């Protein structure tokens, strides 16, 4: 008993010592970070206005009046970005899943399907998104399709879906392959078909495992929706461009950037949080 108590109290003391030591360290790094940030910010605030062109930059990029005037319309245009994002996501996941499954088939008879899946992923991950958007967005309507079918909203969405489903397929395939082979063996041994094994045993585990990685893909997608401005849809970037020409002022771009940040920063933080939680849970 006595030794037990002694042991605990010495433990307590060392723990307290360590906590104190860590608190001191933390305090010191906080001071260092605070001071260095202050120096950088101060020098920007003090030095940049000394630059010869500062007055010009201020009126054309950080013009409060223009900002207030254009913000409501920019927000409204941003709804298009949100809408395009919203209807692209289910399509991307459906196609991505199909491609991932095509790459995961084992039967030799379905080998061509695997080749197709691999080629698809290689091609659409290998070409810049902008190029796919240009090629699909200008190329397909160029075929002279009738009225609703030549819409840049449709073909822009198709371009995004093609590219992003390739990425998602790769992420999913990674998840599928990360599931231990004995899980498959256990399911097969119970007499489940390959299909049921995938559907009830492998996929549910794989999808759970890749949720954080997919969150990051979604953040990237939300930004890339703005690329559709090149082929026509009047979403936020396009709207900002219109304002820029109209008002001869770049402030709308800054406003658009801020609007994006309001969405992407929380989303990225959330993805990081998921990723960390995942890592902690596994270790």
């Amino acid at each position, binding site marked *: 008993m006595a030794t037990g108590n002694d042991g605990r109290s010495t433990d307590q003391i060392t723990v307290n010592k360590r906590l104190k030591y860590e608190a001191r360290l933390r305090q010191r790094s906080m001071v260092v970070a605070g001071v260095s940030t202050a120096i950088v910010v101060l020098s920007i605030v003090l030095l940049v206005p000394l630059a010869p062109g500062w007055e010009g930059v201020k009126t054309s990029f950080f013009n409060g009046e223009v900002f207030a005037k254009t913000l409501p319309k920019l927000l409204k245009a941003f709804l298009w970005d949100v809408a395009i994002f919203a209807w692209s996501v289910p399509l991307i996941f459906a196609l991505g899943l199909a491609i991932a499954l095509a790459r995961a088939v084992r039967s030799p008879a379905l080998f061509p399907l695997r080749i197709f899946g691999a080629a698809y992923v290689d091609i659409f991950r290998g070409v810049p998104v902008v190029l796919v958007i240009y090629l699909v967005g200008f190329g397909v309507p160029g075929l002279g399709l009738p009225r609703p079918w030549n819409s840049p909203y449709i073909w822009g969405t198709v371009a995004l879906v093609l590219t992003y489903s390739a990425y998602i397929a790769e992420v999913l395939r990674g998840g599928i392959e990360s599931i231990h082979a004995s899980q498959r063996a256990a399911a097969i041994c*119970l*007499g*489940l*078909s390959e299909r049921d094994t995938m559907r009830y045993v492998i996929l549910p585990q794989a999808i759970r495992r890749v949720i954080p990685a997919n969150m990051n893909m979604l953040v990237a997608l939300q930004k890339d929706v703005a690329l559709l401005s090149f082929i026509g849809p009047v979403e936020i970037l396009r709207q900002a461009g219109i304002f820029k020409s109209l008002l001869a002022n770049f402030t709308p771009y800054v406003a658009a950037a801020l609007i994006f940040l309001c969405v992407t920063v929380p989303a990225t933080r959330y993805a990081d949080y998921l990723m960390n939680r995942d890592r902690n849970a596994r270790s």
Partner: protein
Amino acid sequence: MPEAKLSLCGVKKSFGKQAILRGIDLDVAEGEMICLIGASGSGKSTLLRCINQLEPVDDGNVWLDELDISAPGLDLGPIRRRIGIVFQSFNLFPHMTAMDNVLLAPRRVLNEEVQGLRLRAEEEFARFGLAQHKDKYPDQLSGGQQQRVAVIRALVMRPEIMLFDEITSALDPELVGEVLDVLRELRAEGMTMLLATHEMGFAREVADRVCFIDGGMIVEQGPPEELFNKPKVARTQEPCTYSLKELNCFMVISKGASSKLNFSALLTLDLST
């Protein structure tokens, strides 16, 4: 054809150039319990996996009743249903509760109504002392409980024969007993069983027949008392005590030496425990 539930004839299996099974002949009668023993890497797991066709055999046949289940092109689903297997670890599906683990396959595969299945599963849970754990997830169960759930999951399929691949070797020593009790219970019921094990004492207690596998062959087999007490192979070692780990080391070190030497070491171990 011999009157056997399961019958292996000249089964061979290689991985690449490495021959793992070099011609295994084995008949398992209805209700018989056979223990496979042998050094690590001797091919026990491979043999079990070849029986339920998880690995296709290179040569030879596996007969289940009158059916050659090693013939290529068979629909293996219905065959695997008749052969239950439990592995060393990673058995359960971690994203499902114990009950869902047990019910998944019968629901998808058997033509039985869910209500009856659930009752049957609950009976099995109760029988193996897991009634209060049936709605837990695998990571909320101890290793021994997980293995028992895995056994239940195989049993609800009403298999005709059960294969066990060292199902206690990943467990903490104090959990081994509860899992071996399950095997004893199945034995008492007359289940046909084939089990790879390092638990010599257990093999000796319950097995009808023990097969010693070495170098991809069954080098000796017989009832346990015969095999353990009066081995046909002359003992070449003085009695000495090896722990199981040391034994495995010893067998690896003496890989070049004759298998007989290894076997007598194994017997020595058992007699001394």
